[in-house]
């Protein structure tokens, strides 16, 4: 998996979390994962198709989701399943939307599908060419995990592939 594909997602997550939480975040553990995805808390999964294909998962525990929602709203919010689900999906939307904006400006074209709540304990297994990068963002309200498994579409334009160093 090329860093050119990953960096926009890291930047976007950092920017969205820092702005929404009004604080600095830091990247903690970073690991590669070739096993089936194992959910840590409440997770939203977004598929992308086009020049780049794969999926991105945003995962946080329910308590962290409530604290994130409260910070984003600027007021203490009561814990509820709906709020937790909404928070995780909207966070995924914003991070992926911002990353996609950056990638599109680099010439990649693809479609982002609406987020789906990932409820099973195990997710889609990554393959040899779509091994997942798991990034933990440490924030004052808890850890937010980003799990990225993306690859260039084999049919993408040769000039595009050259531009990213394939």
């Amino acid at each position, binding site marked *: 998996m090329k860093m050119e594909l990953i960096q926009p997602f890291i930047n976007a997550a950092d920017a*969205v979390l820092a*702005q*929404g939480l009004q604080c600095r975040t830091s990247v903690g553990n970073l690991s590669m994962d070739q096993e089936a995805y194992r959910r840590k808390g409440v997770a939203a999964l977004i598929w992308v198709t086009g020049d780049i294909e794969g999926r991105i998962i945003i995962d946080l525990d329910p308590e962290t989701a409530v604290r994130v*929602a409260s910070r*984003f*709203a*600027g*007021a203490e919010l009561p814990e509820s399943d*709906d*709020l937790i689900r*909404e*928070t995780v*999906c*909207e966070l995924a*939307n*914003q*991070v*992926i*939307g*911002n990353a*996609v*904006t950056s990638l*599109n*400006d680099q010439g990649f074209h693809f479609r*982002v599908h*609406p987020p789906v709540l990932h409820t099973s304990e195990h997710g889609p297994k990554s393959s040899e060419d779509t091994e997942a990068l798991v990034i933990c963002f440490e924030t004052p309200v808890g850890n937010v995990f980003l799990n990225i498994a993306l690859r260039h579409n084999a049919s993408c334009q040769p000039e595009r592939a050259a531009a990213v160093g394939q």
Partner: protein
Amino acid sequence: MEQFVAVKRSKDGQPVRYLVVDDSVFARKNLARMIETFGGQVAGEAGDGLTAITEYERLKPDIVLMDITMPQMEGIEAAEKIVQQHPEARIVMVSSVGYQENIVAALQRGARHFVQKPVKAEVLYEVIKYVMGEDGTAAQAAGAGA
């Protein structure tokens, strides 16, 4: 949350009325909270483009804040349909996907402006004042400090 100088309708001094369209309840509530700090009023909400069209007809809001990626009908198509029927409609697209093609497509099809998520209240406030133009007035409430 920061409080802003209220933006009122010039014609009658009443709060600006908003229709907030987003499939995320969380996003709608966040926008509604910002609207409150602008001295505005949420006239209605919709979770998809089709509902946005019917709600616009029913409520005739001063401003529509419209997400792009939504089920049933996406925001750009809904904006186009509203503007076809109501050329005076003031529609501001609010989306996390802010690449140039998207923005151009939205503006070409009738949207007045574009704000990228995550929304900064001060950015949205300036956009609201710009889009309201002479039909809006930002003025301190009587008795409020300068």
